[in-house]
Every structure is written in C-alpha cells, then in structure tokens.
C-alpha cells in the first residue's frame, strides 16, 4: 500500500480541528487530493511528509511510519511546492544536484541525475542560468526536476500548474501524466483545479472541513448516477420535458440534451413510451455520467445537508 492512514486527528488549538478522524488506504498510482480552501489538504500533506505529527492516529507512507521515521520517508518522497522555492545564487543544475545530495546521493551521482532530469523536463538549454532569472513556467519545471532528481517512489505535487498559461499547463500535465509509467513513481496531486486532477489521476481523496468525504477511484466517484439518463431527441425537447414531468420524472435541458431522473420503480420504457405518444424521435439515451466537478459539488452538498 502507498498510504495507510488510520484515525488521524490534528488539532492546531482547541478551536482549530484541522483533520477529523481521517482514515485512508490507497494503493500505488495517481491520486488527486481535492478540497476547498481550509479543507485540510496542506495539513494532510505535512503529516504525510512527516513534518507535522498528528494529534492522534497512525500514518504509514511507503511502509514507513511518518512520525518516527520521517527522514527515511522523505528520502523516498519528492515534493513539488506550490510557492516559489529556490536557493538564491544557484543555477538549475546546482539546485538539482543540491537537492539530490540532500536526499543522500553522492555528489557525482547527484550531478549526473541533475543533468538527466533537467533534460527530462525540457530545460537542458537553460540549465546553467540562475533559477531566480527564470520565467514562471521554467521555475515550475525546475521545481518538478528537483523533486524528481533522487528518483522518489512517491511524488507530492502541490498545484503544479499554478501561474502557467494554457499551453504551459497542458505541457506540465502531459509530463506529470507520464511520470508513473516512465519513472515508476506514484503521484499525489493536490489541486483546486478539478480538470487537472481529472486529466492526471486515477484515484482521489476529497476533503472537506478536515473530513474525508470520498477516497477511491475517480471513475467511481464520477460514476453513473442511478436512474438518471441523458436523452437527445430530433425535435421537441422542451415538449418532452413537460410530458416527462407530468409522468412523474424530473427532467431538465442541458445544452440541448435532457437529463431525466426517473421516479422510483420506473424503467427507461417510460421515456420511450411518452416520446412515441407525442411522436418525438429519440436519438440517444444513455445513463448520465457526472463530470468530476459535478461529483465534487454533489458530495459537498451532501456533506452540508448532513450537517
């Protein structure tokens, strides 16, 4: 298992309860860490890196106890921070070499890997420039390179597309998406940009107010909404909405398609029957799949309703 978190609570003070009884068990792969601001994402990342002890509970990452073997753990984890992060006066090669040395690599090995990893992120032409002179996109690449130089088994990425233009964002996501296969490492991507997570990750952890709302496969989270269908017709969509509502369905129009939620016990025959009655030609009927964003919002709404 990549992560084994059991009953973790974190109090910053009596009033501030950052994590509430968090339990997770996730295998290797690409994991998205989602949640609104203040949900506890940063606290969870700190705890996973062994930088912050949980108030109670146990945390194992890559088989290491994050509380008692934090240094061993951090030797095997790479971290790409959200904010600007460099050592003043160093160029990209020295930055990556230094990063490797701090992870325990001998200088010669660290220097060789620094050149390779800078080529990997496409910075080989500018590797001898001081990092502080780089553009935002180049700084993001250096941050990724320094996180990868020691060949981590787990890479933690905090808002990796922050500040990038659309083209740069696509390129960064392409690079990240290929990491598990090309470099055999797992990824945990913390982001508030759901499309980024959707593009890169297989699994997701959804946090809200310190609690895990969901952890598992994104496909399952997005899932098929039972009894809800997307229907496309040749003509008369508005009429069919009215007809289906009279039949007890919940129906609405979204970009020319009908989203129809059937009443309990009803089958799709109901939609076809009403359409035939009113001579409306159905061209497409499929169970409705949510986007990650709508699944995310639905889970948050459910949590708020439960409170």
């Amino acid at each position, binding site marked *: 298992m990549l992560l084994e978190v059991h009953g973790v609570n974190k109090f910053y003070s009596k009033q501030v309860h950052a994590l509430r009884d968090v339990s997770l068990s996730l295998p290797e792969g690409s994991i998205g860490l989602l949640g609104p601001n203040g949900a506890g994402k*940063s606290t969870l*990342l*700190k705890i996973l*890196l062994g*930088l912050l002890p949980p108030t109670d509970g146990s945390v194992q990452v890559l088989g290491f106890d994050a509380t008692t073997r*934090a*240094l*061993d753990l*951090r*030797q095997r*984890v790479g*971290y790409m*921070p*959200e*904010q*600007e*992060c*460099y*050592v*003043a*006066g*160093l160029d990209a090669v020295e930055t990556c070499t*230094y*990063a490797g*040395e*701090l*992870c*325990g*690599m*001998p200088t010669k*090995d660290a220097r060789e*890997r620094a050149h*390779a990893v800078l*080529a*990997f*992120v*496409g910075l*080989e032409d500018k590797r001898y420039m001081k990092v*502080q002179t780089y553009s935002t*996109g180049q700084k993001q*690449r250096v941050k990724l390179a*320094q996180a990868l130089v*020691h*060949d981590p088994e787990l890479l*933690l990425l*905090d808002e990796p597309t922050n500040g990038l233009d659309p083209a*740069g964002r696509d*390129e*960064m996501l*392409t*690079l990240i998406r*290929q990491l598990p296969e*090309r*470099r*055999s490492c797992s990824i945990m991507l913390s982001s508030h940009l759901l499309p980024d997570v959707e593009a890169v990750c297989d699994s997701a952890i959804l946090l809200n107010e310190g609690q895990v709302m969901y952890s598992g496969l994104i496909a399952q989270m997005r899932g098929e909404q039972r009894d809800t269908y997307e229907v496309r017709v040749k003509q008369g969509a508005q009429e069919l909405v009215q007809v289906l509502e009279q039949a007890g369905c919940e129906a609405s129009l979204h970009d020319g398609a009908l989203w129809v939620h059937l009443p309990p016990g009803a089958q799709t025959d109901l939609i076809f029957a009403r359409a035939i009655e009113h001579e409306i030609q159905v061209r497409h009927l499929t169970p409705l799949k949510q986007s990650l964003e709508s699944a995310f919002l639905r889970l948050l709404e459910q949590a708020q309703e439960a409170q």
Partner: protein
Amino acid sequence: MGIRDLGYKRYDGKLLPHRSRYRVLIRRALSLAWGSGLMKTTLILGMFPPVICGVYIFLKHQAIQYLARSPQAPLQLDDPGSLVFTCIYWCQIWFAFVISLLAAAPSISEDVRTGAFQFYFARPVSRNHYLVGKVAPAAILVLISAVAPTLLLAVLRVGLSQTSSEAWSSTRWIVGTLAYGPVYALVLTVPPVALSSLGRRSGSLQGVWATVFFVTWLLGEGIAAGTDLPYTALLSIPTCLRLVGQLIYGLPLVYDLPWYLPAAVLAGLVGLSAFVLLRRLNRVEVFS
C-alpha cells in the same frame, strides 16, 4: 515543453546516511559564500594585518636579541607575543564583522524570501541539520579570516624562541588563540544568524546587526572610558569580547570589572540567540 527521456534508468546507487547532511549543507554554504566577490576580497584583505604583525614580531624579537647581547645596560622591551591579541582583536575583528554581516546576518532571511524552507524541509533534513548548516559555515569563515592567521602568528612567536623555557612560556599565545577562537566565532555568528531568522529583508537585518554591534560599542566603551562607570562597558559586545580575550590570554583587563561578568554577558548573548533561533525554527511553517 518537450519530454526528452534520455534512457531513464532507476537510481540504484547508494544513499548516504542522514548525518552526511551536515557536510552537504556546510559545503554548499561555503561554496556559495566563496562565490561572492565581496567575501573573497574580505578574506584576502584579512591576510594582510597578520602578515604585517608577523614581520613586526620578527623584527621586535631580533631587536630584543640584539639588545640582550649589547655590553650596555639591557633595554627592556615587551614580549612581542602580546601582538597576537592585538592582531585578533583590533585588526581581525573588522574582517570577522564583515564576514558575519555577509554570511550570517542574511543566512535564514534569504531562505524565507526565496521559499527555500520547503526546499530543505521537504527532504531528509532535520531542524538540527539546518541550524548547523547555517551557523557552522559563518563560524568557519570567521575562524579562517581571524583565528587561523592569528594562530600562525602565535606559532611564529613560539618558533622564534631561543630557549626551551621561552618557547614553553610562549605557547600561551597558541593555547589562548585556540581557546579564544571558538568564543570569538560564536559571538560573531550566532547572534546575527538568530537575527536573520526574525525577518525576510536581508538588508534591513544586516543594518540591525551593524547598528547593534557599533552603537553598543560606541556607547558602552565611550561611557566607560569617559566616566567612572566601568560597568557600562558590558553594554558593548566588542568590549566584552575584548575583556574575555584579555582574560584568556592572561593580559590585564582594560576595565576594573569582575572577570566573570563579560564572560557571563557573552554566554547570555549566545544562549539567548540560540534560544530565539530554535524557537523560530520550531515555528517554521514549511508550507504557507
């Protein structure tokens, strides 16, 4: 952004133990410091006063030998070894101060400004590694610029001895320098490093350190020299350093004060600075 995977191979080399981090941090900080032209200039210029002092010790020693052989009544001259303390305190303190200003006062504030805390602490680097990695390089540079040349001067004094008893009595300059050097280096590095942990504007923090150093020196020593209040000398960091140096080298104290007071002031200063430093580092938020 092209993806250029030049034949990726998993790293299967050895990983060094965590204690190697001390060496890595110190070596990198020294290499960065050596990259500064101002630092190089300071270190090179700092070699001149000990050379001049060395020539003076040699000539004075020759003069003493000559006068001793003179048929007339011998003229008494002071032991030139006292120049060892004059060199480390009055000459080298300026270079040591510039080094503390360049290497110690901005050491942590620069990391706060550039977000380097995340660079360090997201890796297997503990707060102790980091702390030693900030204080030790500055202390090493102070030792190189001020203490090492003075030690050579003391060795020269011993080397010039004509008799074994003279050589034996002159070893106090070597022993004194070996004892005084660490005190000197700690006083000139721990307080400015602690100061650098209090903000992110390196220039301002360097200004504060310079002000603390010189204003207390002028005030403390000025009032003590101009009035009958020797205790005010304890306000001054350099004066306390001078008194402790005189104590270690076995020279008469310039102010009539109990011997332990300046030592206690310096110990308090270094202790308080270390406390502030540890407290600030324990509160570091690696992720903002």
